[in-house]
């Protein structure tokens, strides 16, 4: 227990947070335009994680190709999610409960498809990095942590630029406050919604690869990260990108800290407890949007 140990822990926590950020930002993106959560997010994530795995096995894809495959698959799967479980409800119903049922069913379906194909067995990603560690002085760092952090930062940077500086991003921001007027301006709202689902799905795909690199894959990752994604979204204040980023960082650090204090098997208990206390103290989330308003 010395300085270098804590430094490594901190970096591990931040990189863990970066993975949550990729999940949570995709979640927040969908919530901000539709005002409800897509509970199939984890399903998309686990499907694309396994498709990325197939790419490594079948064509020996390296990290970048795996990320590209998973992102593309995630995006396409999410387009199907929108068309199958949201599209008609979006036009005909304002009942949040229906969206909830429809998306959670879709998520379970995706997860079960993975179970059908890869049932029971545990798969893990190959080691993408020639060396696992590099040293500065006498401290050694885990390369994969740094890579994930850097990749997440670049992806989120690009996403923010797209949202702030492009016509498409402008339409997404307009849509998030006033869909009807956005369509009155001549924007094909359905198309923008689909494109947003594609982006959120691509983010889910990248997150899936990250999970595959950090841990061993199992179909249950789908439901587990749906819960965690929702948690981060609520802590961040639903629909807020800044809040989601901040909440991800906090959750990443807290989870890492608990895994040291309580051990990995008990860590989730600590994390859930932390989230409950947080929500008790600040139910509106970090960004101040009231969390209970819409699930």
């Amino acid at each position, binding site marked *: 227990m010395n300085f270098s140990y804590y430094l490594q822990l901190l970096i591990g926590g931040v990189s863990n947070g970066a993975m949550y950020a990729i999940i949570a930002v995709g979640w927040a993106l969908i919530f901000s335009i539709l005002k409800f959560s897509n509970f199939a997010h984890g399903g998309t994530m686990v499907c694309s994680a396994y498709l990325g795995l197939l790419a490594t096995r079948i064509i020996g894809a390296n990290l970048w190709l795996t990320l590209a495959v998973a992102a593309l698959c995630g995006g396409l799967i999410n387009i199907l999610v929108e068309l199958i479980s949201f599209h008609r409800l979006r036009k005909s119903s304002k009942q949040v409960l229906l969206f909830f049922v429809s998306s959670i069913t879709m998520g379970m379906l995706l997860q079960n498809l993975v179970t059908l194909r890869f049932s029971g067995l545990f798969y893990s990603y190959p080691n993408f990095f020639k060396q696992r560690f590099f040293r500065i002085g006498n401290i050694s760092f885990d390369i994969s942590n740094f890579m994930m952090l850097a990749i997440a930062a670049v992806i989120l940077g690009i996403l923010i630029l797209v949202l702030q500086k492009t016509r498409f991003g402008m339409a997404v*921001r307009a849509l998030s406050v006033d869909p009807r007027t956005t369509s009155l301006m001549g924007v094909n709202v359905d198309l923008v919604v689909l494109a947003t689902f594609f982006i959120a799905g691509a983010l889910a795909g990248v997150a899936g690869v990250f999970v595959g690199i950090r841990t061993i894959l199992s179909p249950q990752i789908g439901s587990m990260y749906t819960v965690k994604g929702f948690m981060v979204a609520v802590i961040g204040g639903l629909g807020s990108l800044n809040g989601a980023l901040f909440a991800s960082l906090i959750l990443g650090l807290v989870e890492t800290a608990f895994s040291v204090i309580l051990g990995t098997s008990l860590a989730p208990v600590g994390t859930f407890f932390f989230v409950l206390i947080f929500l008790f103290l600040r139910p509106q989330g970090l960004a101040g949007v009231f969390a209970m308003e819409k699930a």
Partner: protein
Amino acid sequence: MLQIRNLCVNYDHVVALDDVTLSVEKGSAVSIIGSNGAGKSTLLNTISGVVKRRSGEILLNNRPLPTSPHEVVKAGIIQVPEGRRVFPNLTVAENLLMGGWRISASAAKKKMREMYELFPILGQRRSQLAGTLSGGEQQMLAIARGLMAEPQILLLDEPSLGLAPVLVNQVFDIITEIVRSGITVLLVEQNARKAMMISDYTYVLENGRIRKHGKSADLFNDEEIKRAYLGG
């Protein structure tokens, strides 16, 4: 130019428009007056495609007008909605660019400069969030945003609503200016006197039906209209 025939619209069981027929000539200004709940906004929203009709047809230049909102804008009809509806989280400049969605990005940049000349106040506030503008400024922005689309027909839904008298006059001056520039205007107003003064033709809508119509100048002398809409 724009023809509406036997249009019927309802919201579930509420009949909002009942057999409405009207036409708008190219280059003219037509006003639709009527009290609260008469169906004025419903009419504009049905033209814009955000409200679905039960029956009837809408023709633009003798061809059926598309029914999805973005296609209506593409066809050259844009609406300045009731209550301004600027995007509060977007800057003034971005609001204008949203209005210019149907034209190319470079054309929109050019058009935006034109708007800043027409509405100097918007030029000064271009990088301010639209939500922080005053009501009057927001109305100017909403009109400018509509003009950004370089429409053939501009639909205006109660542009004078909630404005101080000076601003009301200013808004009507702008509308006159718009018509003069060759854009056809369909104007919905509760301020019947002002609307009739600047329009060529007027339709009176009551409970979803056209009650009366005629040249605006003629309707000024109609006893019924005087009593009901022009304050005696």
